[in-house]
């Protein structure tokens, strides 16, 4: 045991981890080292390979190459049980506890105090209370888990990690549904554990939180290892450059060329839509925004920064708690998707599968849905008109296969996206909000959609364009709204002097108010 002893504080050492899925290299030679008594943040954009790496560490995925050492011992995980036996414990964003059991039952599950074949409930509850107190949590072990807030449930999940004597604790997006006070409480508990010598892996999209709690961070990009850094030595701007993969300067050149394509069609005289102090509790802080006909407004920000939430409020998908909105100068009273459609406001959701396609219906029916809904149940869109609309968009959007009777679930992602665009365009909207319209689709379809967006704006439509790809946002938009930590932090007039650096600066700016 002593001959392969690593430096005393290294608990987990993953080296050269490679995982291949059919046709995709999800991870390619990634290293990760976790040390006792340290909080380590795993950073990267969507699809960078964070969750794949976590699943390799927790034994859910088998690694194709590379090694995992836990406390100096080489381990080959055959399943999650072995990872757990090695002292690796995970707390997920969605709590994987039983909400209809008591706190004590959840914390002690599988480790109840036994007396012969029976469980000694009194002793079990006493033990549970002891573990909770180690985290300075004063909870009644008999209370139902469901009676507590999500934050407290999460803390119970962490207490459970103590019960199984975890050496490594993985916190996967633990703060995404917590408010500020709850995050502070969570961090207090995390620091307690850290001081007890537990190695903690922390994953979060909130930069401020990462900088508040993490001692070190590992950055991934496109399944590759970018580097390991000490938090104190890595400025935010550099971190974001590492995550996105280009430096602000390198990007500037590309944009200068693309910029010429954006010509300003907007008059900025009478706004199509204005939002004043529009916000929703627990979703996005109140913001002001005015949208003009013929203008493309980009929304930039990291995932979870409140981009989609803005889109949902503008289009009636969510009901605002604060503020006011007017469309064509008329105040909006009923915020529903149908009312928005009738006002000429349409949302293309980022979640194509859950909030977009109706899988078992045909392409024709999927295109027809919103148009038909805006006309009501009883006034059916005449078949001839519908066929004409479907045919037009099949051609202009180049939908493949060009068969209106195909079930949409059998189309590729890019073509599904085009069918959904056709659905919204068929309603002749005056404002089209596109949330990640180019995510997960191939380059060709992406370029087609980008071109469509500029053409639509040239025809006088107002477009809100949300994308994780900064270059795309910069190339298309006349104005860019920057979101951070569910707050609108800046509104940048796009111009020759604006580059990715400008936007990154705004995204990264330390949020005193956040």
């Amino acid at each position: 045991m002593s001959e392969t002893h690593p430096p005393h504080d290294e608990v987990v050492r993953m080296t050269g981890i490679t995982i291949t899925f059919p046709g995709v290299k999800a991870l390619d030679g990634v290293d990760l080292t976790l040390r006792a008594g340290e909080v380590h943040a795993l950073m990267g954009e969507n699809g960078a390979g964070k969750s794949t790496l976590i699943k390799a560490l927790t034994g859910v995925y088998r690694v194709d190459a590379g090694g995992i050492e836990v406390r100096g011992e080489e381990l080959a995980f055959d399943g999650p049980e072995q990872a757990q036996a090695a002292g690796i414990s995970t707390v997920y964003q969605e709590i994987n506890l039983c909400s209809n059991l008591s706190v004590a039952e959840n914390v002690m599950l599988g480790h109840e105090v036994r007396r012969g074949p029976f469980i000694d409930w009194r002793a079990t509850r006493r033990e549970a209370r002891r573990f909770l107190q180690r985290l300075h949590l004063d909870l009644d072990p008999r209370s139902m888990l469901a009676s507590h807030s999500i934050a407290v449930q999460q803390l119970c999940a962490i207490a459970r990690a103590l019960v199984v004597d975890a050496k490594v604790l993985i916190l996967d997006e633990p703060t995404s549904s917590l408010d500020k006070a709850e995050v502070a409480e969570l961090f207090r508990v995390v620091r307690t554990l850290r001081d007890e010598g537990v190695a903690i892996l922390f994953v979060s999209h909130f930069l401020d939180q990462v900088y508040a709690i993490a001692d070190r961070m590992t950055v991934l990009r496109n399944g590759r290892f970018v580097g390991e850094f000490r938090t104190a030595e890595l400025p935010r701007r550099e971190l974001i450059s590492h995550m996105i993969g280009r430096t602000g300067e390198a990007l500037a050149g590309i944009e200068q060329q693309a910029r010429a394509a954006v010509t300003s069609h907007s008059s900025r005289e009478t706004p199509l839509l204005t939002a004043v102090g529009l916000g929703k509790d627990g979703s996005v802080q109140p913001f002001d925004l005015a949208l003009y006909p013929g203008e493309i407004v980009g929304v930039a920000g990291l995932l979870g920064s409140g981009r989609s939430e803005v889109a949902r409020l503008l289009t009636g998908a969510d009901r605002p708690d604060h503020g006011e909105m007017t469309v064509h100068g008329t105040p909006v009273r009923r915020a529903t998707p149908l009312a928005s459609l009738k006002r000429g406001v349409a949302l293309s959701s980022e979640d194509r599968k859950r909030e977009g396609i109706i899988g078992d219906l045909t392409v024709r029916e999927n295109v027809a849905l919103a148009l038909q809904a805006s006309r009501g149940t009883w006034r059916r869109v005449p078949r001839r008109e519908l066929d004409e609309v479907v045919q037009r968009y099949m051609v202009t959007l180049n939908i493949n296969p060009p068969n209106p009777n195909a079930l949409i679930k059998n189309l590729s992602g890019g073509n599904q996206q085009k069918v959904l665009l056709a659905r919204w365009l068929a309603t002749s909207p005056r404002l089209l909000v596109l949330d990640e319209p180019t995510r997960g689709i191939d380059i060709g379809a992406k370029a087609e959609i980008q071109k469509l967006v500029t053409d639509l704006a040239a025809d006088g439509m107002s477009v809100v364009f949300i994308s994780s790809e900064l270059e795309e946002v910069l190339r298309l938009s006349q104005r860019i709204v920057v979101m951070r930590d569910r707050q609108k932090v800046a509104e940048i007039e796009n111009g020759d002097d604006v580059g990715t650096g400008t936007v990154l600066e705004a995204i990264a700016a330390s949020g005193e108010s956040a």
Partner: protein
Amino acid sequence: MTTPTSTPGARGADRGLVLLRRVADHGLLWPVVALVVLIVACGLKSPGFLDVALRDGHLFGQLIDLLRNSATPLLLALGMCLVIATGGIDLSVGAVMAIALAVSLTFLDGAADPGAPATVLLAIGLGLAAGVVGGSFNGFMVAVLGIQPFIATMILMVAGRGIAMLITQGQITTVTSPPFKSIGSGFVLGIPTPVVIAAAAFVLVAVLVRRSALGMFLESIGINREASRLAGVRSRSTTWIVYVIAGTLAALAGLVYGAPTMAADANNIGLLKELDAIMVVVLGGTKLDGGRFNLGGLIAGALLLSALERAVIIFQLPSQTTPLFKAVVLIAVCVAGSPILRDRVQARRLRARAARPVEVAA
């Protein structure tokens, strides 16, 4: 023209094969096969079974009885099918039958002249209104309060018979009203009235659902409720409407079913009919998990159900075993139509075809 498969004869055979494949893949193949088999079997066992006679301008015969008996399950299944399309279920239709009949007969019982056409029309209207109220309650629970349809409609399923009992004040209300009785046992143009009513309801619902956008909305709600909402579909009111339709059709079924006896037996009218209705929907090729639905299949399903009940009598089997035979037919039809089984069979066929040349070569 050099390869053997492109000779005209072979091409014709190919086309025949394609047609055969399409028939085989059609969801209604097995229910229709089962129906034909049952009718032929009954005809062989009881020679008079297939005879249809015209007496006093009315059609008579066992096949006509079969049609008449299919009316109630078809009416129930029509509503059930729409509810199932939205991803729901309505367990209360049997109880609603009892309530509607209790309302109608109690009203007739208290009326001065139970035989007067206006009184009978009002009685029918009140019975149907009871169905509208019951359906509205279900729809409210499901669409507005968001209670799971199974539980929400179970409330009325359990409470409904008590309500019917309250209406009849614990009695089995019996009335004499020939016009009312005729909706269950009369004839229109020689055809039994229940058959005419069920056919009219079928056409009405089919037109309502398929000529408007209601059918598409029901399917889209059943497949993906959130995406439908974001596309502007009023999923709440649409879901509500569907339960109201189901309740109204259930009430109509109750009146048609109870009219021949003119006795509002709150405990037994429509007992377990909700399960028959669900079975008809399944036999008709509509999946219970919502989405795509098939109204035409309901006719085949309802006929199959009553043919089965009739067959048990003809083959002189104890009537308590009827549910067993229903179960056997349901299992057989479902297994035959199972996509997994079909894929397996297809895969084996392909393998056999791929293996053949090798054998020839060896």
